[in-house]
C-alpha cells in the first residue's frame, strides 16, 4: 500500500486523542477520590494531602465483600446454566435440525432486539407470584431466559459450520448422537462456548434494570445494581462516591485486562452476529 508519512502521523495523533478522551474521565475520578471526604473538588486537581484511606472507607461503607460475593453467586447461577442450555439447543437447531427447527429458530431470533424495559412490568408480577422477589433467583432465572435468543443464535451458528461429513463418518462407525455431541461437536466448539461465557459473564455483571426492579436489597444485587444504590446513598459525598465507583469497576477491569484479546474478539463477533 502506498502510504505517506503525513498520513501515518495523522493516524497516530487521532489514536492518541481518542485514547485520551477515553482515559481522562477515569483519571479525573481517581484524583477526585483522593480528596477529603465531603469536600467538593474542581475538575482534575491533585489534593494537598491525598486521602488514600477513602478507598478503605468506601470499601467498608459499600460492604464490598457482600457485593462481590452476591455478584459471583448470580454469575454462578446464570452463566453455566445459560451456556449449557444454549449449547444443547444450538446443537439441536444447528446440527440435528428436526422438522420445524427453522420455525423454532425464528421464534428465538424474535427476542434478539427485545429491550428489557419491554417486559419488566409483567416480569415483576410474575416473579412476585413465584415468591422469589427480593432474592437472587429473581435476577438469575429471568436472565437465563433473556439471554437465550442471543446464546442460542450464537451456538446454532457455531454448530451449523461444523462439517456434516464428520457426523456421517461417526454414524457409520456406530457412534450414537449423544457420543457425536460430546466427543466431536463440543470439543470443536470450545472457542465459541468460551466466548459466549465471557459475554454472558459481562452482561450479567453489568445488569442494572432487573437488579433495581426485582431486588430491593442492594446486598443481593449485581455489581451494577449495587453501584446504583451506592450513588443514592453517597451521591453528595463526591470523593467517596468516586472511590466507591472505582472499587466497583476494578473487578471488571481486571477481568477485562486478563482476557482482553478474547473479550474484544468475543464482543466483535457478538455484535456481528447479534
Amino acid at each position, binding site marked *: *500500500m*502506498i*502510504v505517506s508519512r503525513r498520513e*501515518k502521523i495523522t*493516524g*497516530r495523533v*487521532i*489514536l492518541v486523542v*481518542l485514547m485520551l478522551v*477515553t*482515559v*481522562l*474521565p*477515569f483519571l*479525573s475520578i481517581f484524583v477526585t477520590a483522593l480528596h477529603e471526604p465531603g469536600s467538593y473538588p474542581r*475538575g482534575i486537581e491533585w489534593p494537598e494531602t491525598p486521602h488514600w484511606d477513602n478507598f478503605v472507607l468506601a470499601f467498608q461503607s459499600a460492604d464490598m465483600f457482600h457485593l462481590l460475593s452476591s455478584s459471583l453467586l448470580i454469575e454462578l447461577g446464570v452463566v453455566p446454566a445459560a451456556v449449557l442450555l444454549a449449547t*444443547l*439447543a444450538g446443537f*439441536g*437447531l444447528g446440527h*440435528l435440525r428436526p422438522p420445524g*427447527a427453522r420455525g423454532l429458530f425464528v*421464534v428465538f431470533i424474535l*427476542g434478539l*432486539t*427485545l*429491550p*428489557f*424495559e*419491554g*417486559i419488566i*412490568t*409483567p*416480569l*415483576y408480577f410474575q416473579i412476585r407470584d413465584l415468591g422469589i422477589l427480593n432474592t437472587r433467583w429473581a435476577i438469575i*432465572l429471568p436472565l437465563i*431466559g*433473556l439471554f*437465550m*435468543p442471543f*446464546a*442460542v443464535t450464537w451456538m446454532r451458528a457455531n454448530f451449523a459450520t461444523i462439517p456434516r461429513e464428520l457426523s*456421517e463418518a461417526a*454414524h*457409520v462407525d456406530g457412534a450414537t*448422537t449423544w457420543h457425536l455431541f460430546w466427543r466431536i461437536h463440543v470439543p470443536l466448539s470450545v472457542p465459541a462456548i468460551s466466548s459466549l461465557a465471557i459475554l454472558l459473564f459481562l452482561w450479567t455483571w453489568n445488569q*442494572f*434494570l432487573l437488579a433495581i*426492579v426485582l431486588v430491593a436489597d442492594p446486598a443481593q444485587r449485581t455489581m*451494577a445494581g449495587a*453501584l446504583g444504590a451506592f*450513588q443514592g446513598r453517597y451521591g453528595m459525598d463526591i470523593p467517596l462516591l468516586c472511590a466507591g465507583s472505582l472499587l*466497583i*469497576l476494578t473487578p*471488571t477491569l481486571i477481568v477485562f*485486562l486478563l482476557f482482553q484479546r478474547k473479550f*474484544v474478539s468475543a*464482543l466483535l463477533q457478538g*455484535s*456481528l452476529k447479534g
Partner: protein
Amino acid sequence: MPAPASTASPPGSGGTARSRPGVRARRRRVGGSLLAYALIAPAALFYSFFVLRPIVASAQYSLYDWNGVTTATWAGIDNYVAVLSEPKLVGAIGNAFELILYFSVVPVGIALFAANLIRSIAASRLATAARTVLFIPQVIPLVAAGIIWSWQLSSDGLVNQILRSVGLDAAARAWLGDFDTALPAVGVIGAWVQVGLCLVLILAGMTRIDASLYEAARIDGAGPVREFFSITLPGVRQEIAVCATVTVISALASFDIVYVATQGGPGDSTLVPGLQIFYLAFFEREIGTASAFSIVLMALVIAVVLPLQRLLRGRES
C-alpha cells in the same frame, strides 16, 4: 466406503423384509428428532416462560386500567391513545429518537473518520494498545459510565475546567442540569461508550478491503475523498450496519445512563421511554399505560432495526 444407511434406503420402502436398514434408519431419524426436541426444550422453556409470556402479558395489561392491586377494568385502546398523545409520553419517544443522533450517528461518524485515517497503521503497536483502551467503556457497567460522566459534566467538572482554561468561561455550565444541554450531555456519555466498539469494528472491516483497490485508485489519480466514497465506504457497509443496529437499540432502549445521570430531568427534558415505563409501572402504578408504552417501544425498535438489517443483508446477496 459404504454410504450411511439413512441415505441408502429408498423412501417409502419401509416394512418389507428387504429394507430392514430403512426401517432402522427411520426409527433412528424419529428417535433423533425426539432427541433434538429434548435438547431444544430446556432453552425454549426458559425463553417462553421469562420472555414470551411477559410479552403476551404486556399486550394483555395494555388493554386494561390497573394499579397492580385492585381489580383491573377494561380500557380498550385508551392506554395506547395516551402513549401517542400525552405530551410527556410523546416527548419521551422524541427524546429517544434524538438520542439516536448522539448514541449512533455521532459515534459511527467519528469511527468512520478516524478509522479511515488510522487504516494504514492498523497493525502498529499503538493501534493494538488503542484497541484495548478504547474498549474499556464497553466493558464497564453503563451505570458507572453515567456516574463518572455526571461528575465530569457538573459545574466544577473536568469539561468546564477545560473550557475555562481556554477562555470559554461563558460556555461553562452544569451541563446535565440545563434544559437546553441536558439531553445532548446524556448523548455525550452514550457517544463515549459506543465510539470504541464502532471504531474497532469498522477498522477491522477496512483492513479486509483489498489493498490493490487503493493502489489502482491512486494510480488513476483519485483523491482521498473520492477514494473514501468509492472504495472504503462500500467496503465497510456491513460493519456500519452492525454498528448502527447495536447503537440504535442502545439509544431507543436507553435506561441505565439516564437513570443515574439525570433521572429524566430537568423537567422532562431527558425523559426516555425506558425510564418512563419504569416510573409508570413502579411509582405511578399505571400498569396499563406502562404496558402499552412497552409494546410501543418494542414495535419502535423493530420498525427501526428491520430496515438496517436489510442494509446488512444487501451485501450478502
